[in-house]
């Protein structure tokens, strides 16, 4: 087991290094530079000084090595555009809000998605199933930038239950969390329905019926654990993308999360921000996938982590 963990952690660092290298080279391959918008206003000497300050005048391999050196000491470097703050500061300031929203959204999505999926599966081809599936199609089809204003309009303005936007109390988190959870609820419902239908047709469910176990207990004790693996698989990337913030929902609700840095960084060619946010996202994704793999083996005893890696 410890052997497996060691191997796994090494693989994780290797993956991260490849991502850093790819991002670094792609980033420098796209045209433009952090000072492109100022280049016709500022004298050449100032631009040269600026470039020198951020070591952009050095050859790329030198910059790459310097960046890696800083990265090893967990320093993601300064932001070029907002020079008073480092990338570390940006993530430290914004991640709390983003992760809180994302976390809430995941919990809501998981509970309701699994619940709706089970209800749909048990009432297959009946009214409840059709309702759940119609909602699921809606959930996949309606983008969050439509859903969020709708939620604000109905639950904050017409019926002033929640604040319209900004960040502060827990009440502020409800609408953005719902907006974030809607799509995932729909996807989880569909996954759960499909795998629950399959599981409920398995012979071991009939064995349980023959033991005289009532249907609700069969679903809880025999159904869910066997049916939830596809949902867990989907959960990995979902967790990573939700807790690292989403540009659209955070923008609409004026939430000080980290979602905007992902987009702004690219627009501004703010090299350290691009690299920093990418690394941060990747690291969370890699760790989540690792945790999901562990969850697999806890849920299904046939999956053993220590076996040869496939």
């Amino acid at each position, binding site marked *: 087991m410890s052997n497996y963990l060691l191997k796994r952690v090494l693989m994780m660092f290797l993956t991260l290094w490849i991502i850093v290298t790819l991002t670094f080279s792609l980033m420098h391959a796209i045209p433009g530079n952090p000072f492109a918008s100022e280049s016709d206003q500022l004298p050449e000497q100032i631009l040269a000084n600026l470039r020198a300050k951020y070591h952009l005048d050095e050859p790329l391999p030198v910059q790459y090595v310097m960046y890696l050196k800083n990265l090893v000491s967990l320093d993601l470097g300064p932001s070029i555009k907002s020079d008073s703050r480092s990338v570390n500061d940006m993530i430290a300031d914004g991640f709390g809000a983003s992760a809180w929203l994302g976390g809430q959204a995941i919990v809501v999505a998981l509970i309701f998605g699994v619940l709706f999926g089970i209800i749909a599966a048990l009432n297959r081809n009946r009214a409840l199933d059709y309702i759940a599936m119609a909602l699921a199609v809606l959930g996949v089809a309606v983008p969050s930038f439509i859903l969020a204003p709708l939620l604000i309009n109905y639950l904050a303005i017409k019926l002033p239950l929640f604040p319209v936007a900004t960040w502060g109390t827990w009440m502020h988190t409800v609408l953005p969390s719902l907006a974030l959870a809607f799509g995932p609820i729909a996807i989880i419902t569909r996954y759960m329905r499909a795998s629950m239908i399959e599981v409920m047709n398995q012979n071991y469910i009939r064995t349980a019926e023959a033991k005289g176990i009532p249907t609700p207990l069969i679903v809880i004790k025999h159904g869910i654990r066997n049916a939830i693996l596809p949902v867990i698989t989907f959960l990995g990337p979902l967790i990573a993308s939700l807790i690292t913030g989403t540009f659209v929902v955070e923008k609409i609700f004026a939430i000080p999360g980290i979602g905007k840095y992902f987009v702004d960084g690219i627009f501004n060619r703010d090299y350290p921000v691009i690299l920093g946010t990418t690394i941060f996202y990747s690291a969370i994704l890699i760790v989540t996938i690792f945790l999901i793999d562990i969850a697999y083996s806890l849920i*299904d005893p046939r999956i053993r982590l220590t076996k040869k890696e496939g």
Partner: protein
Amino acid sequence: MKEHLLSIENLKVNFKTYGGEVQAVRGVTFHVEKGETVAIVGESGCGKSVTAQAIMGLIPNPPGRIVDGKVVFEGTEISKLPKKELLGIRGTQIGMVFQDPMTALNPTMKVGAQIVEGFVRSQKVSREEAKKRAIEMLRLVGIPDPEQRVDQYPHQFSGGMRQRVVIAIALACNPKLVIADEPTTALDVTIQAQILDLLKQLQEEQELAVVIITHDLGVVAEIAHRMVVMYAGMVVETGTVEEVFANPRHPYTWGLMRSLPRLDESEKQRLIPIEGAPPDLFNPPVGCAFAARCDFAMEICKQQMPPTKTFDKGHEAACWLHDERAPRIDELVAAGRQDS
């Protein structure tokens, strides 16, 4: 009349499909006494398994439903019981052994927990008692090291061992009746013999009544006291195993017997198959369902259902050949030989 442990009277089960309604079971009557093993024999699709599921109330509805007839267990008409009361009978009074042990166990639950699940529910026992019971059951069905095995998962068991676990599940609540639906079909031959021996031994020790469903006459001869031969959703012949094997009365049973290899045939002899296929149960024939494949079919066979005639020792067969007006069978056999 003496009360049977289980009696099935004129049971009819239909299944709705897109192509219409299939009459899977078309009026089955038989009974099982306490401590007796009854085999239901017949080819695929003749309604054996559906009959078994109907006894347990396990017919999926929709698409299936019991159209007519009743299942009476210890004087209670269980086919009419509300689901809640039926749950009290399943597992505790009637246990079921399924065909495919590879899929009949929940892969994510320890075998011990699966064995005593029904027991814990009906007896409200503590955890330690439940575990003790699970170990006891594993020992009963002949699994070595039950103390360790009880905490393992099904994938750590071989096919034969899993079938033993399935049997342990069926027996965990001391039922009076066990229904075994082709319990050995999915196993290799040596394991088949072991499982049959186990069933036979348990049946004798626990004074169980067993309904065993099979298409293997070897299994019937090995384990059963009485047998019920089914064809196209109906019973064509019943009787003690000795009687039916020695004096089969229905042409379908003759066909089954002739299609078996025999050890006492000195010369190499080809097995004789029953030509043709069973009738379409969407639209079953008005007369005897076997008439179309029967070497001895007469005009009446195609027009009217044969009555059930009783012979010695409760031996019954439903065939027109046993009508007084029918020609004697040896004449027909002679005629049949001349034809071919």
